[in-house]
């Protein structure tokens, strides 16, 4: 069972090879694609079970002992995020079968998709900072390809902005990793957590951490570094933007969580900086969304706004707050992906991404209207949806530590989010369509392939809303362990931390 930690990205890699070898046969590619997505989902379920029942899983690559080689470590946090990845990937993969245009499939959508997945799974499972950088790059090059696939004018423009800012981010990340190595002589996260407290907390440490935080903040689309996101995300197809929305920025948040827990002493002013940034992210994101009429651009601004909530939980920096943030992240991944998928169907049926031109869906497609209702109100935080619990927990964490201002701000942003969702609702669903002749019914089998993942995601969102305790218990257990890294260090290095 030693090889279990590498299973998620190994499956992605095998899928990539299989799909690449059937390059000219689209049907075969689709079969491999679906098989791999199912296998990945099964694997992350098994992995989650093992991690929560037997403890942290560690693989020392090539049998090099811990601080010298690369360690692949699955701790509960990684397991939760891998599980979310597996689940969302499964849903989006099914959706992709119906959504991706044949021309894009022939250009190599599926191989690029699986490289992206490999990067994400790798980033979640590595225990080595330089290895994390490598996985980030794998993810990056795949996301460039997916973004520009199809070569439309808008895509080129969007990709240009995405590439330029993200390249700078990864270079900054590499720079800070190099400096960290120069200072401590190690890049293993467990080893770092053990060695860093031995150094006096000097300006050098602060600048390294700030640089690293800057790089991750660009990835996570934090204020004021998020400008690449609304410039690029809406230009590409629905499937791609759904998987980006669910996973890419969240990898940034995950890296930020790891960094803060491992390297930052409590009460450091970088945490206040993060809190300020989180507040501004929420506010600017939701205000940006308010003025948009392009459906995917509108939802892209909401991604930014929601990132603010997660980072708020991280910056408050108690186990409970972090657990709320992770709960919120899980809820948000589901709801956000679902919203993109549903509005994707609307765009496909109404032949437009402009919500002013769409309309009449409540009358003609009541099922879609009902399915939209669940994630939309979950995102806005109406009880008893999963978003309500996520926000309630974050508020409780903020009040417990007397961060009243950010609590008030997050409530205000919730109201604005609700406004945005009502705007989509009234434009796409309630309003009579101006051009009924433009609405085309999809073939029935395509329609069902579209609906299946949406129903699945909605059910899980509902489950999170009705049984939050079940999910939250696992997450709380995770964060308690994160704040006492002795277990992690022992699992990776095999010694009792001194």
């Amino acid at each position, binding site marked *: 069972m030693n090889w279990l930690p590498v299973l998620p990205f190994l499956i992605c890699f095998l899928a990539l090879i299989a799909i690449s070898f059937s390059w000219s046969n689209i049907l075969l590619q689709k079969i491999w694609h679906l098989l791999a997505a199912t296998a990945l989902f099964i694997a992350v379920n098994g992995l989650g079970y093992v991690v929560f029942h037997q403890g942290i899983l560690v693989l020392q690559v090539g049998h090099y002992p811990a601080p010298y080689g690369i360690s692949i470590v699955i701790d509960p946090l990684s397991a939760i995020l891998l599980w979310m990845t597996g689940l969302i990937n499964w849903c989006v993969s099914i959706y992709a079968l119906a959504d991706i245009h044949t021309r894009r499939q022939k250009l190599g959508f599926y191989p690029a998709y699986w490289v992206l997945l490999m990067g994400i799974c790798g980033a979640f499972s590595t225990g080595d900072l330089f290895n994390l950088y490598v996985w980030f790059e794998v993810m990056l090059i795949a996301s460039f390809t997916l973004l520009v696939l199809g070569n439309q004018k*808008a895509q080129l423009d969007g990709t240009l902005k995405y590439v330029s800012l993200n390249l700078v981010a990864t270079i900054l990340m590499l720079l800070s990793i*190099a400096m960290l190595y120069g200072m401590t002589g190690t890049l293993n996260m467990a080893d770092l957590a053990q060695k860093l407290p031995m150094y006096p907390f000097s300006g050098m440490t602060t600048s390294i951490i700030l640089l690293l935080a800057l790089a991750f903040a660009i990835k996570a689309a934090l204020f004021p570094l998020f400008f690449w996101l609304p*410039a690029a995300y809406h230009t590409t197809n629905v499937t791609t933007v759904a998987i980006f929305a669910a996973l890419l920025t969240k990898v940034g948040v995950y890296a930020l969580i790891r960094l803060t827990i491992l390297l930052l002493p409590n009460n450091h002013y970088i945490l206040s900086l993060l809190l300020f940034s989180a507040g501004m992210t929420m506010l600017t994101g939701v205000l940006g969304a308010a003025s948009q009429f392009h459906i995917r651009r509108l939802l892209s601004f909401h991604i930014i706004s929601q990132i603010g909530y997660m980072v708020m939980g991280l910056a408050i920096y108690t186990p409970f707050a972090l657990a709320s943030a992770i709960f919120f992240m899980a809820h948000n991944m589901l709801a956000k992906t679902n919203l993109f998928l549903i509005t994707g169907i609307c765009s496909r049926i109404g032949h437009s*991404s402009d919500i002013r031109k769409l309309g009449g869906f409540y009358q003609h497609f009541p099922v879609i209207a009902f399915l939209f209702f669940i994630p939309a109100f979950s995102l806005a935080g109406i009880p008893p949806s999963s978003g309500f619990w996520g926000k309630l927990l974050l508020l409780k964490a903020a009040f417990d530590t007397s961060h009243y201002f950010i609590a008030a701000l997050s409530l205000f942003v919730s109201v604005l989010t609700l406004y945005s969702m009502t705007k989509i609702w009234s434009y796409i669903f309630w309003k009579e369509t101006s051009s009924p002749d433009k609405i085309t019914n999809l073939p029935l089998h395509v329609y069902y392939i579209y609906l299946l993942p949406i129903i699945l995601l909605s059910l899980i969102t509902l489950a999170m809303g009705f049984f939050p305790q079940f999910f939250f218990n696992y997450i709380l257990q995770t964060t308690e362990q994160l704040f006492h890294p002795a277990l992690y260090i022992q699992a990776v290095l095999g010694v009792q931390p001194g």
Partner: protein
Amino acid sequence: MSDTICWLIGSLITISIYLMLSTQLMRWLFGIVILSSTINLVILLAGRLSSTVPAFIPIGQSKPDQLVANPLPQALILTAIVIGFGLLAFSLILVRRVWRTFNTTNSDQIHYAEFQYLNVMEEEK
């Protein structure tokens, strides 16, 4: 030796930042090229420039005879070079494609995906 390299890194980063602030995409690209190469120097420096002897252990011994160069930064740099090369190749093709499509490499004139072009985008599809 280290001091010289520090000065070199400082000036190279200055040059690259100056280039990256340009609105001309080719200059921006050269800025990225210089920056990513400079970071490799930082990694080399982070591993300490103590020796130029390759890290080989003679047969029959368990450690090298003399002070050898740190092999780890070399491995890291090799990885970073390969990755950087791939990304730069992609960026170069992207810039070329942008130039062919928009007839300009001035980033101020390329805002096709922004708000006012919503209607144009719809028609293209």
